[in-house]
């Protein structure tokens, strides 16, 4: 049974598929929740994290655990958690559950959906202008989920800017094999790509390869990854999980426990394109200005970025 703890403290439980220090998907959410909790103050909010649970069985146990322990908001940060989440949510109508990238909701379930393709489009557009070799590279993990959305957006951006620029696209077949991602990046660079991009925690390896090679740059996704390679990362598309979490906290406190798909996009600024100040000189001012106007177009919908089918 649910051990209701009624001390007025808001408890948030987070379940992460990889480590909270993965420099990408999981770390982003971890930092987002941490920031919200810190803002609210320890007396008002607390968080607990279960990490490295790629498989839904353990995640299911964790979700139910948190519910049983009287957590108020439970965030299962992965598409694969949909089933266990729906199941537990039915048993705990007073608790708010959240998951994503996802679309299934119910009265006490939020789904969140980062529109990865938007920033990707803009990065693709920019990369196509900046490349010297006219070759770009995408280091993919598994061709699914976030990765295809992102990659598809990137390619559209390139085409919009300069159809003659080639985009090399390939996949390691794994989410976490850094060494393989590194080799794949090397293969791209070897094939003359001079700007690369990619998603998932494996990109740490690819970014290493990029920073080993002079004149090769990287567009990042998930979080601001520039600390990983300050001299190679031009910009990052960072999901502002903090605002998403804050939104859910506010809703929860206001009595709205779920029933909404929360989009992360440019309009609501839950997606932020963070340029690396170290490489500020790399993007000429006029190009940057064009970029900003493109960004406005994408945000407003004047430019439609398609999703893969």
């Amino acid at each position, binding site marked *: 049974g649910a051990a209701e703890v009624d001390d007025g403290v808001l408890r948030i439980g987070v379940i992460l598929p*990889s*480590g909270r*220090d*993965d*420099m990408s998907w999981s770390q982003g959410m971890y930092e987002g929740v941490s920031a919200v909790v810190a803002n609210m103050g320890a007396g008002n909010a607390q968080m607990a994290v279960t990490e*490295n649970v790629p498989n839904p069985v353990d995640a299911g146990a964790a979700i139910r655990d948190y519910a049983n322990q009287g957590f108020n908001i439970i965030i299962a940060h992965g598409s694969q958690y949909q089933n266990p989440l729906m199941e537990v949510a039915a048993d705990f109508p007073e608790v708010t559950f959240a998951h994503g990238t996802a679309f299934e909701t119910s009265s006490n379930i939020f789904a969140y959906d980062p529109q990865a393709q938007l920033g990707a489009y803009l990065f693709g557009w920019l990369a196509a202008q900046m490349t010297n070799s006219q070759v770009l*590279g995408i280091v993919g993990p598994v*061709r699914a989920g976030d990765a295809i959305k992102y990659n598809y957006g990137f390619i559209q951006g390139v085409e919009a800017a300069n159809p003659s620029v080639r985009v*090399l*696209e*390939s*996949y*390691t*077949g*794994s989410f*976490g*094999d*850094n*060494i*393989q991602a*590194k*080799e*794949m990046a*090397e*293969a*791209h660079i*070897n*094939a003359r790509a001079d700007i690369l991009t990619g998603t998932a*925690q494996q990109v*740490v*390896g690819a970014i*290493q*390869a990029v*920073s*080993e090679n002079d004149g090769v740059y990287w567009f990042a996704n998930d979080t601001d990854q520039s600390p*990983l*390679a300050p001299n190679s990362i031009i910009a990052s598309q960072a999901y502002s999980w903090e605002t998403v979490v804050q939104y859910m906290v506010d809703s929860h406190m206001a009595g709205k426990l779920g029933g909404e798909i929360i989009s992360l996009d440019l309009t609501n600024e839950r997606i932020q394109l963070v340029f690396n100040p170290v490489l500020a000189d790399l993007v000429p001012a006029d190009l940057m200005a064009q970029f900003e106007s493109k960004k406005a177009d994408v945000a407003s919908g004047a430019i439609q970025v398609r999703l893969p089918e």
Partner: protein
Amino acid sequence: MSEFFQATVLLGLLTAGVRLATPFLFAGLGEMLSQRSGVLNLGVEGIMLIGAFVSFFVAFESGNLYLGLLAAILAGAFMGLLTAFVSVTMKAVQGISGIGIHILGLGLSGLFFRLTMGSISTMRGFPRLAIPILKDIPVLGRVLFNQNWMVYAALLLVPISWAVIYKTTFGLKVRSVGENPHAADSLGISVTRVRYICVVIGSIMASIAGAFLTIGQHEAAFVNNIAAGRGFIAVALVYFAKWNPLGVLAGAFLFSMIDAFQLRIQIIDIGIPYEIPVMLPYIVTIVVLALSTRGRVLGPTALTKPFVRGVHT
């Protein structure tokens, strides 16, 4: 397609193949020695992870890569002693004890990473070291002699292993212990000691293979489970090699070249799902072995069989 055959791409392919083969060479040659003495060490993957973490951590904290390597060697020796204790002294079922060592290595490397470093950090690893003169040999020079010294060391270990096994008194002991431990024992060779030595050396080499994944990269970083199955492949390659150092070299190169090749096949996009190229190295390895194996393979007869004096198996 034609662009694929450009010189730079081919050179890149070969260079990547050599680089990818390096951890397999270290771990595979070590495993071969261990198996030659009669011990199947299936825990290579876990030991690699420990080597990868320990070397990175120590190098990162001390700023000295060689200190990191030394630490990996010590950690590998420790894991080797543990493996030998379980497999040789306690006569455990080696297939299972190896899985235990693997899981333990996975856990310990992840645990200590979190407890000590806590987040992903990067540092400079061993730099490329072009060998004068040799590096100017056309093609081969750039492929073979413009890598970091760990790559050279791995390549050098092939003839060294060969010489140790076939040309030294120690190698003769190892072969006899793996083939007929009762015979070795009857001549006063300590089967236990030889096996301990081989397992420990093998584990040290697995640990160095792990270190190659971190500090052996120009840009070094440790992430959880960085070995990503390479340790198991290394064990598999020993069977491919039929317990011969040159076979390990052949197997490591076959696997790695196909891997490097499939990465490039994907890039030129020939319109097949990328999963097929990703599977390629595994499938080709199986097929090559199936085609090259005829009749009974003469492996170390006592492989996986614990030795008990007077009990003939």
